[in-house]
């Protein structure tokens, strides 16, 4: 019968239309912005810099090794290395960035900077509503704007942040144990070198 296929199709649309009143499965529209779907845990938008402790300038994990600057595919990162050094989380003196700019209008959210960073200093933010009316400087983020606390990192990517913290704590413990062993060895050596002098007396 001519028109049978059309009627079958209409029945299908009718099923979907009336079904949307009873079944949540069929009602798929989300009324943004009143209603929002929570972001997936490892959703990514743009990078930010992680710092430990209360002061962002002192606690910035970045040691300005410039690997991310080199690896960034669209080259949206600009880093200027410091002349002096400051202690990092294990107490080792390291350089720090005097300038760390990311041009978010160039960034393509590929996450390669995060992958290559050996210090877990740069991570992906989930904030995406960054539209601005300033065409030239509005999306050029400096290190003040990029710095976010470790607590913030925990709030957006809890699983990943816990892993990173565990890894950093392990490294710190290793370094401390090594330092302690070195100190003990030095003390023992000092004691050994001191004892013949005593014997000599």
């Amino acid at each position, binding site marked *: 019968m001519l028109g049978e296929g059309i009627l079958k*199709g209409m029945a299908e649309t009718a099923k*979907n239309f009336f079904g949307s009143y009873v079944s949540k499965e069929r009602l798929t529209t989300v009324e943004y912005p009143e209603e929002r779907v929570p972001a997936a845990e*490892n*959703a990514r938008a743009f990078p930010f810099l992680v710092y430990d402790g209360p002061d962002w300038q002192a606690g910035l994990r970045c040691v300005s090794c410039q690997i991310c600057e080199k*690896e960034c595919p669209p080259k949206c990162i600009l880093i200027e290395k410091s002349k002096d050094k400051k202690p990092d989380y294990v107490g080792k003196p390291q350089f720090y960035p005097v300038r760390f700019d990311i041009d978010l209008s160039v960034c393509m*959210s590929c996450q390669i900077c995060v992958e290559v960073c050996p210090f877990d200093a740069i991570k992906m933010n989930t904030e995406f509503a960054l539209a601005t009316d300033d065409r030239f400087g509005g999306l050029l983020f400096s290190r003040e704007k990029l710095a976010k606390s470790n607590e913030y990192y925990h709030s957006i990517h809890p699983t990943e942040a816990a892993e990173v913290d565990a890894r950093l704590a392990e490294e710190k413990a290793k370094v401390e144990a090594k330092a302690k062993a070195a100190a003990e060895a030095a003390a023992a050596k000092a004691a050994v070198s001191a004892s013949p002098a005593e014997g000599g007396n």
Partner: protein
Amino acid sequence: MSSGVQTKPEQLEGWNRPPVIAPEGEGELLEVAMGPHHPSTHGVFRMDVTLDGERVIGLKPVFGYLHRNHEKIAEQTSYLASMPYTDRLDYFCSLTNNWAYALAVEKLAGLDAPERAQYIRVILAELTRIQNHASAVGFLLQDMGASGTPLMYAFREREKILDLFEQLTGARMMCNFMRFGGCRVDATAGWLDGARKMVAGLPNFVDEFEALLSTNEILMARTQGVGVLKPDLAVNTGVSGPMLRASGVDYDLRKVDHYGIYDRFQFRVPLGEHGDIYDRYMVRVLEMRESIRILEQALKDVPAGPVMDPKAKSRGFRPKPGEAYGRIEAPKGELGFYLISDGTPNPYRYRVRPPSLINLTILEDMCLGHDVADVVLIFGSVDIVLGEVDR
């Protein structure tokens, strides 16, 4: 002018172009530039169509509006830095693009992805195929005048697949997930359960989609016998993917090349008989069903283990001098990456074989003799993405 005679608008220079005369002298021909802003061109693409009344007697595709210098950029950056750019080739199927590029570099560097990574790759590639075919059919129907409904049904399902992609890779479309020698992150048990649940609902969607469309008289009247592509012409012009199989040529790289672990799964390759638009539609629908079968088998037993080859390293990656060609059956056809390494961190030559571009070269032969309205449909049935055509 100096005599003070008023110039009529039609006498202005360049206004009155000489009319194109039909070869047999029947009358004037009309040249129409369809695109680059025409809504049916799926992007920025122009067709210079020569018309005799409503009948097409010539068609010249003009592309390059979206050229982004992809190949030269890749020759200036490291191997890894090209991976996010491959997402932007065919932006509907970023994961299969990733896979093709990773496969080429793995061949070049002698890496091998571990078992678990292979399973994850197959799962992601087949999910990509389903969402691509669903939306390709949706867009075809949109061009046909079925405003919205089939496209929205396709996008409802695509949305669920993109949610899965987002949970695993962090992004919905620009996934940037596969790496040389494996995958970037491991899929959690929760994600696999979510995928199983989603795949269990897919046959229902395809049934619904088919009930809506396959026997629809308007669709059949508009597509059957229109835009026929003969198998010998298809083979000679290098057409691949669902376009080639709709013409009846049994050629699927998953069966021919056995790349990845496709030889472990049971699936059939649907073939068309007439090579018209309806066959292309039907082949895509049947391929969705076969993809669901592959997904069911792959999700049943994903082995435990690492997802990265221990030999692989992300920084300081320099493959030995040599060349490699990696190709996969992308949803649109054979997607290949040809790489030459000279031992430096950058490839010496980087070439993409885009299925969209090569499938598009046949457009004029399919359109000749049809109406303008059919040109839109034939073009839609090729299933292209301009990001891949122009690169």
